[in-house]
């Protein structure tokens, strides 16, 4: 009996040690390959990490979101929330965004700022994609813009870069990991359904992230920062969303 107990103790403590060191190894590997989302704390973080890590491990970084026909473009496209009501945005809007500049800084070789005309001169991409709101409704629209990857190449992203952070004229800042930042369908969009991007949809320029829910496609862009850590931005959770209870990763 006592022998059995000793053996059992041995096996249990052996398994526990293996488990603990296994977890430690898993954590290091996950951190090394960027498999842990910034909002990985707490019990819900376990599910978030499993979802994010398994998608990043199993999916191609460049798999393209489905694209649709012109005839499938939705006639009804609801909008959540009004445009920013601060003076800066209202003044730029009153001037047809002639004075608007998109600043790109952080871990880049050539910090820059671009006017709307600059962005429109760059090679553009037009895509008709489906967007679902986290609430449950969805629509299909055509978006035109410059691929974010083009701008990132232009400013020269440092090899240390891990995230690209987007600051709009309101509080809804967000960030993307490098796979989504370099993704060919990730656009700085200035056109929608063949026209200039309407104000309620994020004028003058909004982000388009085709493989995530709508709230990741930040509207009313003002500044883009490339960084290796999200810890000192906001509450350190990667975006405004987790600060108000919504997950950072919305590939779902």
């Amino acid at each position, binding site marked *: 009996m006592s022998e059995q107990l000793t053996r059992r103790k041995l096996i249990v403590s052996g398994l526990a040690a293996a488990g603990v060191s296994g977890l430690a190894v898993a954590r290091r590997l996950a951190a090394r390959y960027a498999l842990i989302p910034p909002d990985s704390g707490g*019990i*819900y973080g*376990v*599910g*978030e990490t*499993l*979802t994010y890590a398994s*998608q990043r491990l*199993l*999916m*191609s970084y460049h*798999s*393209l*979101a*489905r694209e*649709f026909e012109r005839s*499938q473009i*939705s*006639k*009804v*496209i*609801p909008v959540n929330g009004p445009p920013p009501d601060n003076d800066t945005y209202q003044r730029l809007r009153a001037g047809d965004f002639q004075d608007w500049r998109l600043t790109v800084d952080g871990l880049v070789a050539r910090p820059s700022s671009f006017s709307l005309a600059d962005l429109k001169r760059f090679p553009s991409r037009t895509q008709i994609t*489906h*967007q*679902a*709101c*986290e*609430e*449950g*409704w*969805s*629509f*299909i629209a055509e978006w035109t813009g410059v691929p974010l990857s083009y701008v990132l190449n232009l400013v020269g992203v440092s090899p240390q870069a891990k995230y690209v952070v987007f600051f709009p004229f309101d509080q809804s800042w967000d960030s993307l990991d490098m796979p989504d930042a370099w993704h060919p369908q990730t656009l700085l969009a200035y056109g929608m359904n063949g026209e200039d991007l309407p104000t309620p949809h994020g004028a003058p320029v909004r982000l388009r992230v*085709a*493989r*995530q*829910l709508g709230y990741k496609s930040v509207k009313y862009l003002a500044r883009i920062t490339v960084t290796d850590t999200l810890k000192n931005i906001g509450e350190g959770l990667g975006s405004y*969303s987790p600060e*108000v*209870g*919504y*997950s950072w990763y919305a*590939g*779902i």
Partner: protein
Amino acid sequence: MKHSAVVRVTHWITAISFVGLLVSGIAILLAHPRLYWGETGAVGTDSLIDLPLPFVLTGQSGWGRYLHFLSAWVSLLTGLVYVVSGVLTEHFRKDLLPAKADLSLTSVADVISNHLLLRRPTEDETFQYNVLQQITYLSVVFVLFPLMIWTGLAMSPAITSVVPIFVTLLGGQQSARTIHFFAAGALVLFLVVHVAMIFLAGFRSRIGAMITGNAAVRKEHA
């Protein structure tokens, strides 16, 4: 029939994670309690069904989605253990696959009439599944749960960028959402009947059997 340890443990973990999925699923649904068919749908477009529920936009779909995915992972991993073990131990073949004879119309009708007449099972019947139970459990494990996973993944823009047929086969993202809702409804119906039958068959003994594995029924009836 004695429930194996794997069946008992996975049963209760699944039960807990199902409650998590249900509560969080309702929280998410309440942000937009309308169902559509096809790729798209929003307020202002034709709906398939307007559920008689209020639109609730108090942020509950945020924690709802966190809890939904945590519960989904627990449920999925537990389900994998259960299915692999059920195949290896031949639990499915021996206990849940209906015998040919039981599938005849008369014997199925017998079981149904026993149910409708609210006849309590005889002692022997308590120790093996009847054909209705077998079909129901097999449908839950091999049809409804896989359908929930499929339709859930079909709503993910990241997943469908890799496997577009997940969503195109269903007729679109909103169709996937609608099927997800109805399959969830079928699982809730199963849960209600399942729990009702536990009460009818003897709550304490059935719950005891699923906790300890000991089938105490024999003594109780003796």
